[in-house]
């Protein structure tokens, strides 16, 4: 394993590790909001099915909830681009 790392120049190792870091940042940032948005929309669907008259209000609140949770995934996305190396 060490001889594999030794055969490359120093710049390649840094670039490879940066790429791995970027992937880990975004991958880790996408888990929570994925689950969160699924929960929000699922509960919104249940609410709309139980009481169709409130569908408009539920839909508005659902969009609000999606916006807040999706922002966290996007912080990770932007951070993955900002990481330099």
């Amino acid at each position, binding site marked *: 394993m060490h001889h594999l790392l030794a055969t490359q120049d120093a710049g390649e190792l840094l670039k490879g590790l940066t790429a791995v870091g970027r992937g880990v940042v975004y991958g880790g940032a996408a888990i929570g909001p994925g689950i969160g948005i699924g929960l929000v929309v699922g509960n919104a669907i249940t609410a709309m099915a139980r009481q169709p008259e409130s569908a408009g*209000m539920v839909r508005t609140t659902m969009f609000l909830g999606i916006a807040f949770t999706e922002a966290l995934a*996007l912080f990770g996305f932007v951070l993955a681009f900002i990481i330099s190396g």
Partner: protein
Amino acid sequence: MHHVLALDFPPVAHLIRWPNFLFKDSKYFAVNKVVLEMWLAVILVGAFYFIAARRRALVPTGVQNVAEMAIEFVQNGIILQTMGPEGLGWTPFMLMLFSFIFVLNVFEIIPFLQMPVTARMALPMFMALLVWVLYNIFGIAKQGPWHYLKNSVAPPGVPKAMYLLVVPIEFVTHFFVKPFALALRVFANLLAGHLILITFAVLATALFTSTKIGAVLPGALLIALTGFELLVSFLQAYIFTILTAVFVGGAMHPEH
């Protein structure tokens, strides 16, 4: 360079930084494609609502009808849901935010333009700063500085000892994280959409130059993603406007 079947994927800087072509040496007043698109959006939105307001028919048709549909959408879908009937005075501002951001976003899928202005952080940052100044000023004007600070930073119904933890978090959230997240949300969504459209376009082109048939799937997906980006443009403008309404309404009338 990153090669995909002998076609270069351009570095990200080439996708979002456009060369200046007027006032090239000025640091603040140089004009590039993004600035031109901003001016075009201002002219389009202004001319649209100006032309729609000229006829004033009681039963609207044509341009006036579309403008009135937009106004009704902003009033019923955004203002009445979050600020209630006394927020109807905010209609011009919310309508401006929604229309302007929607037109700026939709430039991503218009041929020959194909660059969302909101994919550069300057404009979302300015809009979020504007919203931040507005909700703070209206909150202070409506409730007085001490009550505004108390209602934003210390929610009632929290056990007294927890205030030591909750107040700093709420302070940072209310005064720093909310406007920053407002800007970053629309910026990151549009930047991601721009990059994904470019990725599939480069892939389809590369596969087309090597094997003709391989470009069918990426091409079909590119078309589907363009439609999806239209939805995202509308949704991001709607979310920016409705969050502005929530923040302004919350600053003027704290519910709790």
